């Protein structure tokens, strides 16, 4: 059964918008990129055959749109395989909010974290959307969570056990 573009839009537009909103932090840019994603969806719908991984297909397009936009803004950032760290030792930097903390992550770790925590994709879907293995998804997610935990430790729930852990260190 062929899925219509309108149905895909209805299902995913909010998740795609929030994905960009969280990655970019800018509402207008998020709307522009979301629009671009669904234009590509409309164009690619004839070639797409539903294999049960519709979400992965849509977010693979979203990821490509994100990197295309990133390259357009930063022509030097052309190597997608590179971990584009921001040059900050984030373990020692406190972020004001989650948006700021996400900027301290590498772009690939950030992608995986947002796809999991904001969009709610499974590991398999994230692996499909980002062209990596599930083990890579697990390790990126672990890295992102630990780094965010360190950056946002002032804003996260303080448990007595963590305090005791710091006391041990």
């Amino acid at each position: 059964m062929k899925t219509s573009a309108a149905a895909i839009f209805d299902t995913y537009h909010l998740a795609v918008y929030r994905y960009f909103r969280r990655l970019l932090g800018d509402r207008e840019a998020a709307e522009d990129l979301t629009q671009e994603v669904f234009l590509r969806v409309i164009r690619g719908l004839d070639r797409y055959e539903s294999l049960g991984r519709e979400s992965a297909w849509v977010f693979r397009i979203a990821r490509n749109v994100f990197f295309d936009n990133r390259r357009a803004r930063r022509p030097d950032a052309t190597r997608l395989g590179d971990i584009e760290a921001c040059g900050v030792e984030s373990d020692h930097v406190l972020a004001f909010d989650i948006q700021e903390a996400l900027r301290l992550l590498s772009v690939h770790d950030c992608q995986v974290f947002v796809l999991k925590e904001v969009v709610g994709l499974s590991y398999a879907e994230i692996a499909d959307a980002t062209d990596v293995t599930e083990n890579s998804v697990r390790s990126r997610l672990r890295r992102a969570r630990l780094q965010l935990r360190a950056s946002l430790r002032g804003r996260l729930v303080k448990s007595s056990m963590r305090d005791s852990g710091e006391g041990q260190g």
Partner: protein
Amino acid sequence: MKPEHIDALSAALDGELVEPALLAESLAQPDAAALLANFAALRVLAGADLDRPSDAFYATMATRLTRPGLGSRLLLSFRPRAMAACWIVAAFLAGYLLHSSRAFTPANQAPSIVTPAGAPASRSGIAPSRDGPGSPPTRSTASPPTGRSGARPPAVPSLYIRFGEWRETEPPSMRPAAGGEK
């Protein structure tokens, strides 16, 4: 805490499959509870304060979804028409070439023209020499009478194409009749 313990706790939090023994071992780690609580708090923060797109966005997308881009629509509508046009042009071309080749079949040619020397004129306008069969042929200089006195219209050289061979000649009706050369 080892990475595999953190991965197991993450997987449990994310609803993924996790090996029970490994999960039990991970939960037994000293800061497992704090880690889980922090990860849950991160999830809350990541999903918080996320607004919806503006009304302008929805208006634009409604237009785009109901009316795809002009370029793609033109391309899609033009493709079958272009194919049809190509077939029509090809059919005309084939018909023209067929007609041209039939115009040169012997059945359509005028009866052989006899030159004053008595030899039949060749179709290319090269007539045998009057000096005899052994002499080199000479191009026929015969031309029909022109002007008001002549019954025939002035000769108009026409160009025929026959299988890639270009040949300038006169229509058969323009050729002089037997003994017409003066």
